[in-house]
């Protein structure tokens, strides 16, 4: 029995008596909807004949989904309580804790959602309702009265004919505005030129009571030339307290022991650069066949640490800038524009030290970078 077959009550809600207890419930629904600007134009039960095989089947399907959802939920809770979750090295049952709990929780939620959607699509009555939009601007008389009210608000203050007050208000308005942001900006503001934090690194002898800083491994042990084999490389840190920590994040250096012919190429390139003054500043910082480059990419600051022994390149894995080891680490591909700074090497008591700090700023460029 399709309800929309009912004769329309003349299109007006007034045609039914809302207080009459004998009025069918749906007529009240329809009348209420009309009052809300909604016309229910089609409304029919999915199953005009109750209890057909199809309807029963859908009911059974939904019941099954709900039952499974509940079982998954309790299964997940059981896994959460009883399954071991502590990490053990190697294959262990605890590795299944997260998948099992996820399966229980996720399965329960998913099946519940499925049951609800099937219920809505298969069992709720078919319906087409049409609502009026009532869009567009407010009626023009409303607009006029509101704008009059707003304008009157300004007139009531009389601010227009009181220029002294108008001017006087600006001062506290600006002042309080500045006062409100002052604590935030003032406390956060930090001058980058204080102590030249963008220019100095851990290799500055000032960090080591004026002594030249040793090249050390992460554990702090100093390095002798024979520790790095020919063609090999090693990440080294300034030999000062905390030198290998993120406190000196701009200081890691790649120490490379070049092969004889590569070292000769680099020496020739440096000499050529000194004559033509290309890629300034030119640093002659090699010690024997050893050279040390800053590991911090001049593009975005990632460690440019992938050492290609065959092509003598350093590759930064973040944005693929490539630097030529045998030519002062100038960029030869990718977005980097400047060479990796070279750390001038020296030998003291048989151990490597930095002759000085880097002669140019390490890492990414910025506006006032010298």
């Amino acid at each position: 029995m399709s309800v929309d077959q009912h004769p329309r009550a003349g299109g007006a809600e007034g045609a039914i008596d809302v207080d009459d207890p004998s009025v069918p419930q749906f007529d009240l629904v329809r009348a209420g909807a009309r009052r809300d600007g909604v016309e229910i134009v089609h409304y029919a039960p999915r199953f005009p004949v109750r209890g057909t095989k199809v309807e029963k089947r859908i009911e059974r399907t939904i019941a099954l989904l709900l039952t499974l959802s509940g079982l998954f939920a309790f299964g997940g809770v059981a896994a959460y309580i009883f399954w071991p979750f502590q990490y053990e090295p190697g294959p262990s049952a605890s590795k299944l804790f997260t998948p099992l709990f996820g399966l229980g929780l996720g399965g329960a939620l998913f099946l519940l959602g499925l049951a609800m959607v099937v219920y809505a699509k298969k069992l709720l009555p078919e319906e087409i309702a049409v609502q009026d939009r009532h869009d567009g601007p407010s009626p023009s008389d409303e607009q006029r009265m509101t704008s009059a009210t707003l304008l009157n608000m300004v007139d009531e203050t009389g601010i227009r004919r009181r220029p002294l007050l108008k001017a006087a208000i600006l001062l506290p308005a600006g002042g309080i505005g500045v006062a409100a942001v002052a604590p935030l900006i003032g406390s956060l503001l930090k001058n980058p030129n204080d102590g030249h934090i963008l220019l100095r690194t851990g290799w500055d002898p000032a960090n080591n009571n004026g002594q030249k800083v040793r090249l050390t491994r992460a554990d702090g042990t100093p390095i002798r030339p024979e520790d790095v084999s020919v063609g090999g490389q090693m990440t080294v840190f300034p030999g000062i307290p905390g030198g290998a920590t993120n406190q000196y994040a701009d200081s890691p250096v790649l120490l490379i022991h070049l092969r004889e012919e590569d070292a000769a190429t680099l020496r020739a390139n440096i000499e050529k650069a000194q004559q033509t003054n290309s890629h300034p500043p030119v640093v002659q910082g090699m010690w024997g066949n050893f050279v040390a480059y800053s590991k911090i990419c001049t593009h975005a600051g990632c460690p440019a640490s992938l050492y290609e022994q065959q092509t003598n390149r350093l590759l930064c894995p973040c944005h693929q800038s490539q630097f030529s080891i045998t030519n002062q680490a100038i960029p030869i591909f990718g977005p980097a524009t400047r060479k990796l700074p070279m750390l001038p090497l020296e030998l003291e008591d048989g151990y490597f030290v930095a002759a000085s700090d880097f002669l140019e700023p390490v890492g990414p460029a910025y506006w006032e970078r010298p």
Partner: protein
Amino acid sequence: MSAARKRRRMDLARMPGAVAQGVDERFQVATPLRRLINKVYPDHWSFMLGEIALYSFIMLLLTGTFLALFFDPSMAETTYEGSYTPLRGIQMTKAYETSLNLSFDVRGGLIMRQMHHWGALLFMAAIVVHMFRIFFTGAFRKPREFNWIIGLLLFWLGFFEGFAGYSLPDDALSGTGLRIASAIMLSIPVIGSWATTSVFGGEFPGTEILPRLYILHVFLIPLILIALITLHIFLLVKQKHTQWPGPGRTNHNVVGVRMFPNFGMKAAGFSMIVFGTIALMGGLLQINPLWLFGPYRAEVVSAASQPDWYVMFLDGSTRLMPAWDIHIPIGDGYTIPALFWPTILLPGVLTILPMLYPWIEARLRKDRQAHHLLQRPRDVPARTALGAMAIAFYLVLTISGANDVVAEKFDISLNAMTWAGRVGLLVAPPLAYYVTYRICLGLQQHDREVLAHGVETGIIRRLPDGRFIEVHQPLAPLDEHGHPQIEYAGAPVPKKMNRLGALAPAVRGFFFPVEKPAPPTPVSPTPVSPAVAPAELEESREGR
């Protein structure tokens, strides 16, 4: 005694009514409540994309609150002594240590972490696809321009929220991301170095940045997100939903189902499906196994370090950017780093342009009307092609964000991938524009053809004079020239014949029939196009 019991029973039956009466006496809810229940929602699958974002956001709030109970953003150094043996004895920050504890020592902590991460990826994906829907159907047009802008802001807020969250665990990957972020900040002309040292409280990384990101991530940005989402939905309700053109649908009405029970039950069910999907992903699919990366150290990085997918397009633009620093030879000399263009300027343009797009399009089309009916993408070829162009641009950047992985997996030179990206970025978008434009025109033409000649049925008929014609099923009654009188209405045109007079309807049931097959319908003479007059048909039949 029995009388008292009787009265009590009657009271119970009356209770809901009495409670409702009491509530209404105090709050006068009868009218607004009924209005809410009766609010009409149009139905289309593409309208649920924004819902996915909303439900993912709810999941993010829930899982995020759980994580906050155990996470400590402190950058103080400590030695790991937790249950994950490979990292025992290693120096790390409290942030990384508590992230590891969440993964190994908090019961159910790992799934919450993974659900939070998957939820964030899904949130951003749903926002992007939802924006495609809005753009390609013209739903951003007047009066909805401001909701379009709010949507864009939600995308960027989600972007920063996601990046902040990605940075918090302080593993090697997130630290590298933060290092790049600091370089990007440094590259801003004039104020770059001041801004960076101020944000980081000194030199990168310092000890301030994670606690600062944490308060942004768990308080400030979510607060703004919630406010904007609320405004977004309020405007949606106030302006009412757009709808596709169709029978009875006009610019002045909404045709659909009422909010309760029909729309409400579907939406609630769908929210459970989204929650369930996130939980299943969090449980079954590993994401961000940060114990494998180790703590962040300035000198450690690995190949194939990719950010989350929604940041990848900026990573790609950074990779493709040629090494062009601009030097300004005034005084000591100033630099605009190459990094500035793809990471600050490009996102700036990508924010401003789409924000202004609704007004740009309205001006170009001289269109000041309010629009509540959606447009099919094919009907506005220029806009659709522009969108395809933007997607092509975005895809080239996103793929380039993983060009090292592509190079490795397909054994292509890395430098070749970079060059392919640079060339592709210039070539692919115009190509996408042209191809999309042509496809739109082709689809339009096919719609008009079907309207003029009817649906192709695939039935070949031999005429008495020996000719073969394909039978077309017209969509409207024919005029005297044998053409259907029907205008294109902006709605999909049926392109499959209906079964009337051709085949019996299929029997319902998946494994076995659940109803009796209908009796075969007698084959009626199908109208053909070019139409043969019925009288002529009769003649030819009699002639046989």
